[in-house]
């Protein structure tokens, strides 16, 4: 029962494109009496980095959660490769190729890198009716993900607690990649990181895009947006007020859009 989402571009930059990898159409999300998202229409192109920005309470986390299956929209549609889809859980989004790396990373410090990457998703061998974790395969695949996607030598056998903030962020990204997603959503990927670690994570995210992934970055950092994203979508009081190429807006424009919903 798929349908093509209508074109609602405003001429300045396409806020919605039927050819987008993932799109939301007139999405509304209501919590009790609070309207967190109101008629949000947005399309993310294949193989781009789109940043979602907004002030606190603007709705960026809610939109991220709608895309990652944590929240079901109250109304509106989600399109994946032009097909209308419904996500009723993070697992359903994962099954359609969407992975999310949350701000708190959800890492288990006592366990090693490979175990964190494949927790809940271990390569296994069938022994009669039983499934036994294949540890050789687990470490080999973890190493392959690290080598292919991460610009850092991370030992899959080392405990996560051994690693710096930037490396921990990379491990969380590697875990998302273990499911071979088409779309990766990153929630504040560089908050609380040092300058070096921030550069490391940004380089990795760009590498993911270059390897064919579609990336959505939720961020409050304007520096991050201009250094990382191809396009930026601005949320203001639950609505998308601007979607533009990062080449076509300034920091002042974004600041103004975040604070007042209008360009300066």
């Amino acid at each position: 029962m798929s349908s093509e989402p209508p074109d609602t571009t405003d001429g300045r930059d396409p806020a919605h494109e039927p050819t987008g990898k993932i799109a939301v159409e007139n999405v509304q999300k209501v919590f009790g009496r609070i309207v967190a998202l109101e008629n949000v229409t947005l399309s993310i192109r294949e193989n781009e980095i789109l940043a979602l920005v907004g002030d606190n309470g603007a709705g960026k986390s809610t939109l991220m959660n709608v895309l990652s299956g944590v929240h079901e929209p109250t109304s509106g549609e989600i399109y994946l490769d032009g097909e209308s889809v419904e996500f009723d859980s993070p697992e359903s989004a994962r099954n359609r190729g969407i992975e999310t790396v949350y701000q708190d990373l959800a890492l288990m410090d006592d366990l090693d890198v490979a175990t964190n990457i494949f927790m809940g998703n271990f390569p296994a061998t069938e022994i009669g009716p039983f499934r036994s974790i294949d540890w050789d395969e687990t470490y080999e695949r973890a190493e392959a993900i690290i080598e292919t996607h991460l610009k850092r030598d991370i030992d899959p056998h080392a405990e996560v607690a051994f690693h710096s903030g930037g490396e921990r962020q990379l491990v969380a990204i590697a875990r998302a990649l273990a499911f071979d997603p088409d779309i990766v959503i990153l929630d504040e990927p560089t908050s609380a990181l040092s300058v070096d670690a921030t550069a490391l994570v940004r380089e990795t995210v760009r590498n993911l895009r270059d390897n064919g992934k579609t990336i959505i970055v939720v961020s409050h950092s304007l520096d991050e947006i201009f250094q990382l994203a191809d396009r930026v979508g601005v949320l203001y009081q639950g609505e998308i007020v601007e979607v533009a190429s990062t080449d076509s807006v300034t920091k002042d424009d974004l600041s103004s859009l975040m604070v007042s919903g209008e360009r300066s």
Partner: protein
Amino acid sequence: MRTSNIVTRQFDRLPEQSVLILLENMIWPILAVISLLVLAFVPRVFTNTATLQLMLFAAVPLGLIVLAESVCLLSGHFDLSVGAIAGFSAVLTAMILAEWSLVSNPILGVVIVVAVGCVIGATNGIMIATFGVNPFLQTLAFFVIFGGGKLALTTQPISGLPDGYTALGSSPIVAIGVLLASFVFMAVIFRYTHFGQAVYAVGSDKEAARAVGINTERTIILVYTLSGFFCALAGLMLTGYTGLVSPDIADDMVFSAFAAAIIGGISLFGGRGKLLGALGGVLLLSLIETSLNVAGFDPTLIEVVNGIVLLIAILLYNTKANIRDRVLSAGAST
């Protein structure tokens, strides 16, 4: 080329990782040192096969209770009720078999004792995982309820149990085999199954485990059910070992269970440790107790020594945790 870099990095961190590996497995050098001391001062413990066999035989119930406690600890949860569950399961089943004569089939008796342990354990798990009761308080309540419950059932030792019911625990070879098989089986489960790794994940960080899709509630309930199962098995072994069920059966075993688990390298806060290390802790406690017995120490003094071993285990745990923190902070900053 990147693989070689990873290998280089492994070597860069080799000293720190070696320290951590040594800390995690410190039970084995401790056991070796104590064994040498015993060999030097009480050689009869090792030279007399019967003494050695008796030591291992007597260690079986404690070993199973340590296994029950370790499974909980690895998931980041306490269980103060392990001894009470073992005792209550054994007393209730003995009442059913011998006093009330409701059942005479020994196999059915084994099924009942295990079922009682599993139901109590599962109830612990449901209260903690589903209703959010603090594990310490929940299992403390069950420690009191079932510790008192077995006294309410009987104040006299129960004898006249079917031979088949006591057979498992009365044969040293079978009982030791059950203990070793239980540890090896659970070690394999914890290493090679998703459930085992989920237990480590929940013990390391419950919220993170939930975020990666682990059903933490089900995992915790299953952990406590397994704990109840091994407690009941310990009760069955104790029954076989003594041939009767006394009202004070399995009393105070919880403290020795903690000591053995901690000194065996199981983290008090979950996520770290190996079950075979806990088995090493059991062997250590049994070796010390047997050696003191053989050397002719007053049995009342042995309790004091057990307390001192618990204190040493806690001090070692604290020292280990401090060293580990220092090693990790040095490693994370490189």
